């Protein structure tokens, strides 16, 4: 989140409102004199603090995921697509009733139980892409350890079963979509689901654990139409089991995954 100091008319009606009221960014303050002046540059106006979303940086360099995801792909995917969603979301928020919501709240509310409102696509895309960059790490992949592995084996049988299910779900999507490993709150187990366009398990109230972008822009430059290679490389070399562990730990605060293992002396 970025706080932006914006000049705006005082909503409570007091103060002088002139015909030339415009929003001015902090860079364009008109100083009455050269020395640093703490007083308000425009008399009779109140300040309103506004907040919009900004583009979060992936927790690694743009070329860190080579050779499984090229630098150019990450540059365009993050710098152009993800950025475009953030900018469009901010544009919506200037006039939207959902201004001030957290991103997760906004995704659930704007999904509107299947009749999505206009902010849904952009807010969900922003959330999903943030989640996606954090789901990956350089030198990722291989096997999870400890509790995560136990939970996966409990819910899928074997780790290979989970990989097969994940890959099958990813390849079953027609058109743009995402594939998720998520924790079902009611059934208290992990599951895999594919979704269309920008939908995520947040809209039906469950907790996402891994998200993989299956839109063509995520893999076309590197793999062209070979989606199975993309998904296999993601699972074998890119997925960040560390972030999975962190997300499972957080999810345990909301979902009771079983009796705690209290060590017996």
């Amino acid at each position, binding site marked *: 989140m970025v706080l932006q100091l914006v000049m705006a008319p005082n909503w409570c009606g007091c103060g002088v409102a002139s015909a030339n009221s415009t929003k001015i960014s902090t860079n364009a303050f008109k100083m009455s004199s050269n020395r640093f002046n703490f007083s308000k540059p425009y008399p009779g106006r109140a300040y309103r603090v506004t907040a919009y979303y900004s583009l979060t940086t992936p927790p690694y360099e743009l070329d860190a995921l080579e050779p499984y995801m090229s630098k150019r792909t990450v540059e365009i995917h993050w710098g152009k*697509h993800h950025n475009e969603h953030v900018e469009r979301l901010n544009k919506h928020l200037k006039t939207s009733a959902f201004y001030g919501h957290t991103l997760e709240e906004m995704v659930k509310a704007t999904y509107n139980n299947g009749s999505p409102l206009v902010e849904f696509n952009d807010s969900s895309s922003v959330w999903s892409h943030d989640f996606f960059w954090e789901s990956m790490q350089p030198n990722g992949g291989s096997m999870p350890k400890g509790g995560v592995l136990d939970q996966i084996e409990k819910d899928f049988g074997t780790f290979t079963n989970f990989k097969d299910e994940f890959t099958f779900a990813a390849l079953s999507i027609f*058109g743009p979509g995402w594939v998720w490993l998520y924790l079902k709150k009611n059934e208290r187990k992990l599951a895999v689901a594919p979704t269309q366009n920008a939908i995520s398990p947040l809209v039906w109230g469950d907790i996402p654990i891994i998200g993989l972008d299956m839109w*063509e*822009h995520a893999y*076309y430059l590197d793999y*062209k139409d070979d989606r199975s290679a993309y998904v296999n490389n993601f699972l074998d070399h890119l997925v960040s089991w560390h972030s999975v562990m962190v997300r499972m730990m957080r999810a345990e605060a909301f979902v009771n995954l079983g009796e705690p293992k209290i060590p017996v002396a």
Partner: protein
Amino acid sequence: MQPATACASSGLTIPWLRRCSSLRVKCSTSQRAHCASTSTADTAEPIEPIEPIDPIETDPEPDPEPFKLKPLPYPFNALEPHMSKETVEYHWERHHRGHVDSLNAIIQGTEFAEMELENMVLTSYNEGNPLPFFVHASQVWNHDFFWETMKPGGGGNPSNVLKYLIERDFGSLDELAKEIQNAALTQFGSGWVWLAYKAHRLGVGNDINPRPSKKDKRLVVVKTPNAVSPLVWDYYPLLAIDVWEHAYYMDYENRRGDYVSVFLDKLISWDVVSDRLKNAMFRASKREKMEKREMLLDKMKEAKLRVKAVDLRPTPKARPKMKRRQY
């Protein structure tokens, strides 16, 4: 041409003799000498063996490929530099062919295999509840349409009726381009952008326009998601732009707007679009006439009038009138 006959006496074939084999052939001495001297391998035409008649197949196997991938109307590199050879190759060879193969795999042996493609698209759409092979049938149709909409050295301006309708319904070609751009940029995810001829008919019996005007049939810009096309809404598509990312990602990366504007400036074949418009207008007016006639027939039936059988045959050629005899 009769096959070469064999000489009755020498048993050698006689190329110059073309007679029914039932006749006995008598060779003169010189001919026999000729036959004997020359080897049959050089002069004689080979006797064609009688081909065995194939047994009539009582239960023919279903055609494993009811639909074939239609070849492109131009080579892969013909659309350079606006659409690279690699893009066209991958798009046609992998994506388009993939849909053809998937469609064939699903419909092989079913009653759908006999259908025309357009009919199959409408049937499988099933009014919003699509059957599993709708996406493949529709994408095959869409891609065929898309390749034909483009041509090497395309662009320019539309002419005649198309130009008139564009100016009547959009204002100018630039306005149309702007609307197409807008549709392409607001299509979230994958899909297609179309210019379609819309006849504004609902296809129900009491669809009567209280104030009919010439503008009822007009051009519209529509965008559709994933594999849907305006055929399912009863429009007549005129041009299609594929805004799935695989169509432009290698050449334009994320700049969908640039791709669409280059398409309209440099790739589109306005001739093809004009032909489609002519066809669409003809079909639309014919359909309207049929619907009006059906409505009228229904009305007459309701009023219990005797319905005259209408002769739909074309008017016979005018023959010279016979003179009446003067009695």
